[in-house]
């Protein structure tokens, strides 16, 4: 009779695994906490990169919108006082802004078909401009010299110049703009002159409208009239063809008023008396008095504003503005300057739709961060598994299945990844917030980013756990696969 019959070993549930993994972690608390810290740092790094990208992107876009709103007020005010520049007219026909086009068709008395023609021609010119822009520097030097696109367009109007241009295109193997010779020839000889003619007509119409507006306001400067009677100016502007529905005249009036105050301050610095007494107050030589410095001084407190206002009042030919107005203008001026320095160029407005608002370089950075994570985590897990080969071997000697051992390590890694990951993600997001505050200060925009930031924290956490688990699977599989005594011998 056989006494020993080999049967299949029972398989144990994950509860026992977790229990064992936990008691292992508790025993090696110091070692485990180092692993957890490494995991946490890796996750913090990732979470920080993602969250900061979201926070800074949102803030930059909000700041840009504010700057644009302010700039567009300036543009609107200017347009009431003088006609649009030729280049800006062309740009508006290319961008096809409905409000502007409504004004232009009135001023240029453009029929519907004329408008259609003009839009088509403007688009053609845009194609030409784009083609020129896409030249490399070398090609540009050969084909256009130091002319810009419009200058080039006007240059190749003579047949000889056009021939020479196309010949050179052939020589350096560049596709000529618009493709065919015929298209290019019609553009320079027919379309472009016709377009220019319409643009001039529109510009002339705009000039007439401005002149009429001034007449209507009885010789007052438009911005002065605007400050006093915005509603009246609005009516008059509408009558001469401005599309006033898009203009907030009260804001425009406030803007014009502040601009006038600001100009006053700047002009008053020119007066020797004021300059000298300001120099005394600011404790700098008179030559160093300039508008930024004065604005900063005013914004320091309202007493300074009152002092300057008194100075203005005492000076001949200058009238006082009011301390409150001065203070407001100065703080607004400084704020605008600071916003401008925070976001000097347009942020990528499409970024919102992209992966956590990351641009090309941001994505490389994330990849790098990810690699650092992989290496850090793999190293930490490798060490924590290899130093326990004896334990694995002992368990195998006592009848543990390979699967159970692997499961134990996977759970251990997952637990460590979870703990380290939660702290790391929180820490990373916290750091992103601190960095945002130190960079943007009070202008930091947190509204609406909560969801995305939470998502970036969760993503980093998941990556951390997955990495930890994957990094543990390799070495523990290698250990579990060996015969017990072979594993015992591994150093």
């Amino acid at each position, binding site marked *: 009779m056989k006494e020993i019959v*080999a049967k*299949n070993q029972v398989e144990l549930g994950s509860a026992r695994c977790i229990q064992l993994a936990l008691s292992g972690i508790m025993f090696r608390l110091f070692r485990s906490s180092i692993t957890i810290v490494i995991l946490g740092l890796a996750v913090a790094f990732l979470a920080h990169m993602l969250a900061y990208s979201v926070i800074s992107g949102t803030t930059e876009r909000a700041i840009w919108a504010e700057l644009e709103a302010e700039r567009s007020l300036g543009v609107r005010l200017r347009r009431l006082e003088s006609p649009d520049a030729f280049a800006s007219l062309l740009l508006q026909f290319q961008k096809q802004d409905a409000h502007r086009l409504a004004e232009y068709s009135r001023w240029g008395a453009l029929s519907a078909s004329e408008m259609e023609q003009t839009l088509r021609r403007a688009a053609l010119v845009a194609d030409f401009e784009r083609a020129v822009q896409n030249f490399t520097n070398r090609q540009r030097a050969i084909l256009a010299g130091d002319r810009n696109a419009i200058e080039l367009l006007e240059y190749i109007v003579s047949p000889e110049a056009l021939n020479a241009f196309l010949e050179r295109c052939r020589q350096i193997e560049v596709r000529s703009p618009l493709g065919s010779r015929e298209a290019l020839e019609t553009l320079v000889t027919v379309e472009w002159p016709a377009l220019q003619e319409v643009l001039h007509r529109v510009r002339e119409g705009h000039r007439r409208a401005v002149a009429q507006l001034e007449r209507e306001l009885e010789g007052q400067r438009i911005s002065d009239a605007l400050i006093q009677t915005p509603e009246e100016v609005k009516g008059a502007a509408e009558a001469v063809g401005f599309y006033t529905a898009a203009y907030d005249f009260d804001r425009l009036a406030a803007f014009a008023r502040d601009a006038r105050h600001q100009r006053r301050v700047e002009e008053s610095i020119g007066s020797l008396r004021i300059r000298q007494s300001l120099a005394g107050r600011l404790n700098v030589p008179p030559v160093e008095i300039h508008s930024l410095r004065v604005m900063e001084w005013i914004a320091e407190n309202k007493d300074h504003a009152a002092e300057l206002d008194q100075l203005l009042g005492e000076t001949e030919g200058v009238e006082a503005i009011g301390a409150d107005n001065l203070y407001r203008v100065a703080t607004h001026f400084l704020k605008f300057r600071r916003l401008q320095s925070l976001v000097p160029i347009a942020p990528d407005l499409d970024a919102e739709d992209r992966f956590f608002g990351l641009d090309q370089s941001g994505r490389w950075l994330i990849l790098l961060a990810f690699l650092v994570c992989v290496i850090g985590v793999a190293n930490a897990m490798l060490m924590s598994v290899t130093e326990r080969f004896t334990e694995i071997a002992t368990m*195998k000697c006592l*009848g543990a*299945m390979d699967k159970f051992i692997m499961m134990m390590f996977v759970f251990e890694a997952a637990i460590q990844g979870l703990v380290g990951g939660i702290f790391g993600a929180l820490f990373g997001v916290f750091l992103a917030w601190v960095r945002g505050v130190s960079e943007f200060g009070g202008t930091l925009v947190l509204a609406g980013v909560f969801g995305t930031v939470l998502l970036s924290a969760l993503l980093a956490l998941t990556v951390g756990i997955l990495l930890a688990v994957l990094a543990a699977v390799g070495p523990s599989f290698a250990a579990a696969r060996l015969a*017990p005594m072979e594993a015992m011998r591994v150093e």
Partner: protein
Amino acid sequence: MIMTAENEKPKQTPPDRAVIVRTLDLEKVYGSGEAATYALNGVDSTIMRGELIAIMGPSGSGKSTYFNMIGALDAPTKGRILIDEVDVAQLSASELAFLRCRKIGYIFQSYNLIRYMTALENVTVPMTFSGTTPEDARRRGMELLDLVGLGDRWQHRPIEMSGGQQQRVAIARSLANQPQILLADEPTANLDFQTGEEVLEILRKINQERGVTVICSTHDHRLLYLCNRIMWIRDGKVERVEKRENMTIKTGKIGGES
């Protein structure tokens, strides 16, 4: 090997005793090329069911290696191991785990306790793997610790125990799942005279009362009075196998030898 054949005299073993472990031309080489060490070099041996066999030999003769082979803990370089007439090489991973867990008990020379577990937890590890409920495991674990005289130290961890105490925990653990074969690698090496005596008594009782086959390597001569046979190993070979009846007179010489 020729000597083995002469000394073993298999025909003299009682017919009611079946072979439980058999090795055929067992060879284990560590390393390769120049550095190759023949830890076992052609070992043919048979161990009978229910016997208590002592394995003796100088240090480095291959006793522990032999244990690892017949305990299915390591693969031989050459040769076969049959446990209850089943070739170990043919067992699946799961069946091997079953065998190690329930049929064979191991007392390692270096104890191999798990560092982060208490004495009781260490003793119950094999029961965990065999699917015993935690309550049963705990109860039986305490019984086993009482048996080796460590009932009051069940919550000590290995680092908090002396070498002898750790060895006794290892002994308790080896009995966790009531194995059919007990492999004891120098179980009394670190014990004082009195405790060593107790451990030998435990081995004897397990052997006689439960009929467990006990294979015990040792330098302890007291075992010679308890065992049925002695197998002498030297340089990875079985030098000779003697029945105890035939060797009582020679004890003095044996002492000089090992």
